[in-house]
């Protein structure tokens, strides 16, 4: 009996392969092919003298597409790279893969519904989109949000800036190989998203900031949550410093990579952290304050070299400044209304509808045809985590915008890529794109 058992044991390579059992061709790699692959690998070892000074002939240049499905292009960004060996000579960003016509959609939505639409543009900074649109509507309608709503707006947008920058750091780390940074960044962003969920009911696309104020008051216990965030995030930043700041590989991959000067930034309409990393002191929160930001104390962190490292540093410093603003906002949170006391704009509370015919009419009017905004055009810009986020709004006196245009910071910042990547290595494109932090929902709208 024991003999029968040993016969059943299968030993690899002893039986003959039955090539006829499948119709998909040979399933094993031929021996000579394996050998040639190995030779290719040996020949691909890069030596130090790869930088070619003189211009190569046209036939030595190769055009290669990076994206739109490349995981390191942060969405559906496609780059056409003109390569000379390993060096990028020219590049061209090609966009539009995520275009959903949100500006056209906005013309069919009432001013009340507008935030639902714009919050889906820059999906990492939804509060900024909502705030920008709401400020534009309020400017045209000549209303101002009550003090409590303004402080809530500052609180939420600055928390959003922290969560957005955490994603930027996380993906930047992951793209260069610091996978732990990715896990840490997403973990700590979760703290903030939980608070958002508690306040607005949603983790993203909140539709919370609306023309006239905010949709709901802060939840009970919000102060403890905010204090916890303000306590934990700075500690976690120290962890990030251990991971990145003191990491020779990180420094090697980021310092002097993807350089852009301040003049080039201005010429190419680059705003936000990339502009400040190049040493230009320009923050719309300081230059054209909105929502009472002129009363808060904070600094504008600046870089010098305009490389990937400086952009990373600027984001870390901005997180620290934002934590400071959040603390100030929590301290000064005034009591009072969180929506403007205007029956034509603010929907009545649910209980009033049962008691008052007038409230029912207002409710019906607001949700069917929306409130009317006087004829006019305006442009409002705020500082989103990615730069100047603007809303150009035109009203012809109806309940819907005649035209709504969003000045998307990622869209303009992408113009920096060909400059940053010129004459750099293919491997550095990953670090450069990540440092620019483009959100394709914002680019394509």
């Amino acid at each position, binding site marked *: 009996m024991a003999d029968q058992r040993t016969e059943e044991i299968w030993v690899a390579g002893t039986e003959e392969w039955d090539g006829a059992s499948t119709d998909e061709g040979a399933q094993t790699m031929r021996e000579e092919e394996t050998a040639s692959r190995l030779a290719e690998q040996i020949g691909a070892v890069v030596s130090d003298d790869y930088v070619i000074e003189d211009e190569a002939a046209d036939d030595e240049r190769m055009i290669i597409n990076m994206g739109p499905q490349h995981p390191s292009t942060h969405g559906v960004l496609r780059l056409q790279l003109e390569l000379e060996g390993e060096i990028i000579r020219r590049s061209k960003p090609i*966009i*539009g893969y995520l*275009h959903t*016509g949100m*500006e*056209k*959609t906005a*013309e*069919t939505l009432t001013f009340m519904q507008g935030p639902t639409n714009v919050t889906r543009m820059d999906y990492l900074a939804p509060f900024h989109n909502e705030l920008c649109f709401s400020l534009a509507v309020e400017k045209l309608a000549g209303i101002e949000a009550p003090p409590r709503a303004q402080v809530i707006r500052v609180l939420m947008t600055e928390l959003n800036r922290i969560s957005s920058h955490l994603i930027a750091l996380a993906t930047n780390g992951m793209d260069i190989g610091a996978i732990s940074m990715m896990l840490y960044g997403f973990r700590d962003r979760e703290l903030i998203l939980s608070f958002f969920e508690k306040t607005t009911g949603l983790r993203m696309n909140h539709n919370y900031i609306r023309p006239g104020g905010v949709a709901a008051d802060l939840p009970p216990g919000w102060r403890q949550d905010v204090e916890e965030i303000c306590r934990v995030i700075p500690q976690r930043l120290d962890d990030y410093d251990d991971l990145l700041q003191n990491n020779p590989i990180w420094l090697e991959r980021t310092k002097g990579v993807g350089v852009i000067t301040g003049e080039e930034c*201005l*010429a*190419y*309409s*680059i*705003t936000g952290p990339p502009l400040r990393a190049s040493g*230009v002191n*320009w923050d719309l929160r300081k*230059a*054209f304050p909105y929502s009472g930001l002129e009363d808060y104390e904070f600094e504008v962190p600046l870089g010098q070299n305009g490389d990937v490292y400086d952009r990373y540093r600027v984001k870390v410093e901005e997180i620290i400044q934002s934590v400071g603003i959040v603390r100030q906002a929590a301290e000064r949170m005034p009591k009072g209304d969180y929506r403007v006391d205007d029956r034509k704009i603010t929907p009545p509370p649910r209980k009033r509808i049962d008691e008052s015919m007038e409230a029912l009419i207002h409710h019906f009017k607001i949700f069917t045809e929306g409130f009317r905004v006087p004829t006019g*055009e305006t*442009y409002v*810009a705020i500082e989103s985590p990615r730069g*100047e986020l*603007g809303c*150009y709004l*035109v009203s*012809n006196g109806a309940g819907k915008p*005649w*035209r709504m*245009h969003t*000045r998307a910071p990622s*869209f*303009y910042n*992408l*113009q920096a890529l060909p400059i940053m990547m010129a004459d750099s290595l293919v491997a550095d494109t990953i670090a450069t794109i990540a440092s620019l932090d483009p959100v394709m929902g914002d680019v*394509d*709208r």
Partner: protein
Amino acid sequence: MTAAALFEGFPEAVAEGDVVRLAPNDLEAFARAALQAGYEMCVDVTAVDYLEEREPRFEVVYNLVSIQHRSRLRLLLAVEGDEPHLTSVTPIWPGAGFAEREVYDMFGIVFEGHPDLTRILMPDDWEGYPLRKDFAVGSVPVQFKAAHLVT
């Protein structure tokens, strides 16, 4: 040169606060003067289609920012016709490149002198200009590049 002196030599320009209405022919000269006056950045270019609201129907909007003077300027240019032509400001502010392509893509306004005036958000072979008011929402059949290959 100060911001106030900017409007000398442009008698047709009508300024109201930080909004300036400008004749389309003055655009290039005005843009050069604005850059000289310290408006380093052209942060945004967009357009509005005032079909059946105003004549001419298209208005192109430029948003300028001066960091040194900490001020904004918005240029409004009413451009004639259904296929309007305008001078590109990309030689003055290269950052307007993407934005002008977007306006061309969405409204069909041609910017002469633009180095690469192609569609940017819509597919290359798209017909029509989506943000025009006579381009319907929803009722348009979905266009796909490879649709004719599929049987």
